């Protein structure tokens, strides 16, 4: 019975992992096919679809736009989020628990509702510029990711260590720099990386805020999929997967993956 | 032994390439308290888990009351266990924790209730019946763990470091209290501990374990006064020990040349053997011209520790196999670090072991 349980749960885990990876891994061989369709198994080997990324109208532009957007949103979130986390952990904030729940609440909300609400409000105040609308909204998306990790690493930090450093001859700013910063840096960096991914991959909020000339990568990809599906999509997807894997490896080196679990 | 309640024969257990139990045998009489004493990694907890059925032996057998239980899974063995840190079920109340085993064994609620009440009364926890176990102090948690293990009327009780989670003062009280309670119930119990003082307090016999084997199984007094090996000597209590070479032997006595002088001890070793002579600290007195039948040595004091009822002198010896601790009921005037002292101790109390 006990062994049966072990077999069943081990089997379930194997199944879960296979199932989860299947749609991701299948994209990679398709991106190297010679045929202009997604047929499996892929035929031949070519890099033509990777070359085509540059020739497809608007794809490179969308990649650039999404990257700039994600980068800027992440930087703004880091600034706002770190200040807020310091206030919550070290300062006296009335209703601190409610405030931190509020700061994390955009995570709980259906993205589509947020997108619609933003669209309506921006119309109301007369902001019609897609780039600024996207940036305002993406900071809302990225801020909770930064808050969560920075808040967690700050509350785990033992501020007695700063005192210890001061008794060992460091001035207060030097003590913060030598002791506090190295301890919370991993949380800081991983929060930033996750915020970046969240913004870069966002679809449901962006779809209401883009215009014809300003399209983020996920929007452009979905459009392309609807208009002329060919393995170029697989090539872009493979690049995105590689980027994600690289970021995850980086995070693992910094903090260990298990501490990153978003839930 | 006729009244053999627990019999472990030829027990062996390996984890990968490491041998944790090595052809170990142990017999425990009905109603006896035996401690498994040893440093971490000696195999004592593994032996306990094998007896409980939480681990399978690679070879050998375990019998309780004449019945071989080696092949039974843990839940069919009826062997009670008090776990280290107690392993109480955090989602259940005190009474539900104690009733867990009865419920698991299908005892109807009506029959279980008086037994739970009885167990609660036994450990003096009746007024805590409906408290969550997470709200209890360490000592109270231990009582619940004991009651939970006893209420199913196990044939044998195993206790894994039962006092390690308690602070020193409480530990001493609980040791006596638990020993008394288990004696009252009349159960056979096996304690696992790495604390030699605890083993001396709670057990009828102590099995000193080393590298998966039992080094010596004896009552506390024998263990202390007649350790079977250097390992047991060092693990149980303190001692003054000196390395040396046998210079003469005969008539059940050897003469050993040590760094501090000549020592005679009961024993049989060939002249020229490398040995270690040892004496318990309280057997040593500071006397220059003692009556006959004593060894005398001269040493220098390096440190003095006042322990209340007695005072310890640490002797100035080079590091290595020599170690010198002497205990006096009262410190004579004028003795401090650096003093030269004459030591005397009975030849009969002097032990001699082959050098490691």
């Amino acid at each position, binding site marked *: 019975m006990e062994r049966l349980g072990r077999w069943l749960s081990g089997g379930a885990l194997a199944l879960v992992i296979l199932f989860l990876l299947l749609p991701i891994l299948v994209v990679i061989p398709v991106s190297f096919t010679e045929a202009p369709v997604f047929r499996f198994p892929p035929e031949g080997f070519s890099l033509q679809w990777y070359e085509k990324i540059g020739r497809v109208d608007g794809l490179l532009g969308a990649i650039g736009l999404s990257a700039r957007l994600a980068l800027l949103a992440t930087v703004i979130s880091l600034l706002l989020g770190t200040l807020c986390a310091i206030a919550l952990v070290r300062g006296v904030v009335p209703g601190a628990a409610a405030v931190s729940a509020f700061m994390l609440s955009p995570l709980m909300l259906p993205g589509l509702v947020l997108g619609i609400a933003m669209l309506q409000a921006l119309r109301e105040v007369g902001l019609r510029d897609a780039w600024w609308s996207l940036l305002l909204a993406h900071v809302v998306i990225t801020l909770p990711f930064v808050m969560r990790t920075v808040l967690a690493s700050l509350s785990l930090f033992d501020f007695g260590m700063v005192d210890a450093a001061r008794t060992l001859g460091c001035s207060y700013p030097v003590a913060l720099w030598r002791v506090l910063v190295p301890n919370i840096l991993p949380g800081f960096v991983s929060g930033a990386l996750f915020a970046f991914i969240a913004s870069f991959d966002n679809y449901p909020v962006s779809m209401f805020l883009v215009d014809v000339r300003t399209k983020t990568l996920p929007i452009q990809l*979905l459009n392309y999929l609807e208009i002329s599906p060919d393995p170029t999509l697989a090539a872009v997807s493979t690049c995105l997967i590689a980027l994600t894997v690289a970021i995850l490896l980086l995070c693992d080196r910094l903090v260990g993956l298990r501490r990153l679990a978003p839930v | 032994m006729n009244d053999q309640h627990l019999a472990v024969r030829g027990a062996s257990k390996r984890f990968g390439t490491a041998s944790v139990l090595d052809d170990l045998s142990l017999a425990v009489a009905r109603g006896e308290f035996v401690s498994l004493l040893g440093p971490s990694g000696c195999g004592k907890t593994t032996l306990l888990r094998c007896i409980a059925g939480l681990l399978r032996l690679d070879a050998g057998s375990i019998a309780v009351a004449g019945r071989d239980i080696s092949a039974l899974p843990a839940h069919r063995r009826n062997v009670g266990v008090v776990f280290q840190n107690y392993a109480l079920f955090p989602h259940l109340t005190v009474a539900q924790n104690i009733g867990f085993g009865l419920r698991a064994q299908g005892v109807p609620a009506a029959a279980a209730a008086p037994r739970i009440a009885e167990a609660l009364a036994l450990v003096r926890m009746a007024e805590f019946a409906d408290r969550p176990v997470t709200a209890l102090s360490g000592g109270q948690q231990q009582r619940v763990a004991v009651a939970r293990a006893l209420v199913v009327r196990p044939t044998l009780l195993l206790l894994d470091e039962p006092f390690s989670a308690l602070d020193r003062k409480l530990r001493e009280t609980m040791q006596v209290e638990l020993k008394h309670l288990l004696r009252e119930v009349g159960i056979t119990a096996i304690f696992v501990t790495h604390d030699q003082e605890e083993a001396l307090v709670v057990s009828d016999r102590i099995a000193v374990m080393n590298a998966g084997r039992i080094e010596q199984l004896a009552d506390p007094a024998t263990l202390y006064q007649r350790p079977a090996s250097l390992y047991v000597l060092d693990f149980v209590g303190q001692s003054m020990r000196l390395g040396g070479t046998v210079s003469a032997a005969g008539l059940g006595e050897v003469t050993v040349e040590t760094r501090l002088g000549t020592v005679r001890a009961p024993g049989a070793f060939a002249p020229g053997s490398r040995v270690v002579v040892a004496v318990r600290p309280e057997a040593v007195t500071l006397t220059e011209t003692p009556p006959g039948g004593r060894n005398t040595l001269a040493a220098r004091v390096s440190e003095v520790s006042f322990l209340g009822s007695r005072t310890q002198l640490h002797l100035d010896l080079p590091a290595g196999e020599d170690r010198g601790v002497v205990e006096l009921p009262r410190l004579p005037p004028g003795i401090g670090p650096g003093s030269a002292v004459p030591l005397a101790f009975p030849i009969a109390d002097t032990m001699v072991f082959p050098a490691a």
Partner: protein
Amino acid sequence: MKRDPLGLLALPGVGYLALVFLAPLLLLLWSSVRGPEGWTLDGYVRLLGDPYYRGVIAASLQLALITTGGALLLGYPAAFALARARGGWQVVLFALIFLPLTVSIIVKSFGWGIVLRRDGILNWALLNLGLIERPVRMIFTEGALYAGMINVFLPFMVLPIFAVVRMLDPRLPDAAATLGASPWFSFRRVTLPLSLPGVVAGVSLVFSLSVAAYVTPSLLMGDRYMTMSMVMAKAFLNLRDWQLGAAMAAVLLAMALAVVVGAAALQRRLGGR
């Protein structure tokens, strides 16, 4: 009261979210009850009075329930196996479950399409194994939608359960066994109740995410399976019926909020025992 200078550092972040996040939400809710002629429940009446929209709500709930149930069935035992895995293995297995969470949902849905196509990998495998004689139509079926949804949301079930299960004291089942509990009894009375907080967290997360799902159903089913999110997007982008869309958003918001608040209350009760 003396103002704490450090506490003031929270202001920019809180102010930003209040302005750019909370205010638009309140405006959205307000516009769902505000018509050209003042207060109105017209949006809600049209939404809840129309059998088509009621059907959409029911379909969304059904989809969320099936997704949650499927994810729980697969994810619960998997989380235990993950918690039992040792050292290095655990990190690798964890990463494999975590990775899909960070891969774009567009990429995953696109990949899922390749898997299910008539000339896709699943049909290819089944044909080669001799299980089927000609390719089976899988894409654009409800089964494919359920599988795709579970695929997207499964990590949100596994990870919270894993987080609880790996903290469970492994000696508790041992203690139960020494008290005479069979493995099944011990699972029912010890392991299951202690893992419930993780299950509640996973279920509420997967349910509130999947009831609002947009990308996966629209990519895998198109207009054949309308969910609340799809109707909402349509109302705003195509129909320009803002009142209807706002009412739908309010209903969706209420559902997601109810699940989150309900789960939090349940967690507190489970934790308080």
